[in-house]
């Protein structure tokens, strides 16, 4: 049985994994970069070892160093969290070869799902629907029209070497397909030096819906229902919820079945996520499988009551899943808002810096998974996500109301955060109505950027309080400058100042 787990990660997910370890009586080992000596996961762990400089490539991605630490610390197992080495087959392989349990699926599963083309072919073979299209390079106009007709319009022409929207063209009718094809090719050539393009069905009003799956080493597979992740900005998820407002019981059953098929096709073991695109007519298509824990796993934990990290560790220990598909229920509704250190009013610029003060929302139906604390300096080397706020209630509308209440309570000063932005999402009509797809943020950007108006007196009072604070500050400065007999500690002095406004 696993007695000590090295967590090869940082930030909130490292702390989250260690929480479950602690509950299971398992010791946790942190690794940290030189920039992270004061990070919460180092403080939270039972043991902590430095694995290199600030740059991720030299620390959190330093496979050999991390395995060396695992050996020194005599860790039985390594949990990779998400990001960093979590979907790195070489890492999983080296961990296993070092005689340490990798808490995740097999190398084969990671490799297969990590390669888009192989995964797509396997899904077709396994009867899991994929976005209709072809990965082949289309070289002549006849073949182009043939395939486009076969798929059915609208279609998307995409550069094989593509990314960032370059070399992409949406085509709604046959008459436009050739000119679009030529423009895409030419754009691809100049952008990537490679003019290979392929065609895919264009999914209208696309919803990003994923299924959590869990499998043990004994061939038992379950899905833990869906997560609706369509609130995205630049393919970055911002808000997730479960159940999906789009979902029907029939579709859930069908998609859950296909998600399990996808997992079975690679003999999947552990926790994984099958991502689908779903259109407004409830057609769904396999997108990819993430062979690790997801950022948004807490909403699934909240409605099913299952601790997914504990489940991962139990599976890694060779235990059978303690629940069957028919035991699982979606109880109520859960929403997650990701809180980033960013300035949404300034093009969502990341906002690292020192957290001056923080108070998390408390009370009924609220969970926070974070890692920053007062006085902590958020480093600029890593992801700007500060925390995840999860609300739960029996109904969706109550979960939204509760999230708004929690966001009202959540105070972080020193760095700009996305709290005001996600608060506006909770008020956006399309979101409240559950009537949204991946275009939601784009479509509602004007609303999301508008501040609610404060009455006239707000500004006046802000001015007054600034005035009082400044006056008091100048007075204190004066006192300290002149007082040369001053003996007590600055810290103590700081703590003692209670009635500071003495104009």
């Amino acid at each position, binding site marked *: 049985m696993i007695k000590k787990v090295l967590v090869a990660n940082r930030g909130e997910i490292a702390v989250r994994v260690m929480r479950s370890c602690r509950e299971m009586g398992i010791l946790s080992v942190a690794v940290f970069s030189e920039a992270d000596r004061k990070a919460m996961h180092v403080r939270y762990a039972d043991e902590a070892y430095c694995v290199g400089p600030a740059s991720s490539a030299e620390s959190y991605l330093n496979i050999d160093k991390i395995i060396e630490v695992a050996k020194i610390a005599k860790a039985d197992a390594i949990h990779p969290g998400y990001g960093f080495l979590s979907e790195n087959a070489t890492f999983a392989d080296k961990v296993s070869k070092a005689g340490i349990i990798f808490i995740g699926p097999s190398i084969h599963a990671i490799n297969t799902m990590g390669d888009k083309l192989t995964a797509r072919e396997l899904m077709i073979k396994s009867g899991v629907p994929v976005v209709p299209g072809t990965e082949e390079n289309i070289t002549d106009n006849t073949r182009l029209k043939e395939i486009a007709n076969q798929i059915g319009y609208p279609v998307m022409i995409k550069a094989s070497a593509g990314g960032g929207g370059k070399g992409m063209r949406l085509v709604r009718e046959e008459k436009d397909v050739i000119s679009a094809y030529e423009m895409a090719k030419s754009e691809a050539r100049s952008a990537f030096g490679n003019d290979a393009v392929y065609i895919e069905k264009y999914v209208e009003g696309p919803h990003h819906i994923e299924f959590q799956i869990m499998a043990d080493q004994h061939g038992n597979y379950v899905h833990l229902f869906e997560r609706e992740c369509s609130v995205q900005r630049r393919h970055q998820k911002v808000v997730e919820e479960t159940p999906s407002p789009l979902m029907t019981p029939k579709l859930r059953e069908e998609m859950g079945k296909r998600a399990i098929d996808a997992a079975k096709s690679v003999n999947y073991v552990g926790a994984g996520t099958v991502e689908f695109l779903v259109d407004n007519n409830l057609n769904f298509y396999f997108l990819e499988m993430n062979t690790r824990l997801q950022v948004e796993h807490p909403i699934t934990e909240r409605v099913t009551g299952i601790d997914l990290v504990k489940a991962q560790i139990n599976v890694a220990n060779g235990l059978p899943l303690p629940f069957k598909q028919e035991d699982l229920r979606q109880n109520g509704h859960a929403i997650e808002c990701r809180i980033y250190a960013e300035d949404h009013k300034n093009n969502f*610029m*990341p906002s*690292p810096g020192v957290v*001056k*003060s923080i108070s998390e929302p408390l009370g009924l139906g609220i969970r926070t998974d974070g890692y920053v604390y007062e006085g902590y300096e958020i480093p600029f080397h890593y992801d700007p996500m500060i925390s995840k706020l999860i609300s739960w209630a029996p109904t969706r509308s109550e979960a939204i109301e509760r999230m708004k209440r929690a966001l009202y309570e959540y105070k972080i000063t020193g760095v700009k955060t996305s709290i005001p932005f996600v608060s506006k999402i909770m008020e956006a009509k399309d979101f409240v109505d559950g009537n949204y797809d991946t275009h939601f943020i784009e479509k509602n950007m004007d609303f999301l950027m508008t*501040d609610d108006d404060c009455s006239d*007196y707000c500004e006046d009072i802000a001015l007054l309080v*600034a005035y009082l*604070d400044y006056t008091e500050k100048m007075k204190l400065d004066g006192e300290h400058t002149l007082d040369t007999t001053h003996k007590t500690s600055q810290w103590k002095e700081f703590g003692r100042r209670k*009635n500071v406004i003495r104009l």
Partner: protein
Amino acid sequence: MPLELKIDTRVAKIHVLEHVGSNYKVEIDGRIYDLDIEKVESDTYSILLNGKSINMEMIEGDEPSQYKVNTLNNYYEIEVVDAVARYRAKAKSHMETGSNIISTPMPGKIVKIPVQEGDIVEKGQTVIIVSAMKMESEYKSASDGIVKSIHVKVGDAVEGHQPLIEIEAQ
């Protein structure tokens, strides 16, 4: 001591008329308020105005005379203008005349510099791309002008508020 305070383009004058304990009677640009103001945390105030409970975070800016204020729905940047602050502001604006210095608000790494010294640039043209926290941000020229000097090169790690590129406005 009546002070001037700036918020955006507004310049406000404040007079404290009465003050007992945490209770203030003040005049702000001719409007009279009765308030109960308590500092409750290191940068948080609780204000009662005719029974209404209001909370404000007063975060000191780069200078002690600058404040970033969060209220429930709004964000303000306020500057207290006293003699010292006024002198500094003057000196600063003089220094910057005709010059447009690009800097980042945070540390990061230079990803791309699509201009060279001597290039003519337009207002809004991207002159440098900096990566921080897994995101790339584009910095644009605030005016039409000529690239006067470039202080960094691709791959450099930079601190926040460090001059990266100077553009002379035309």
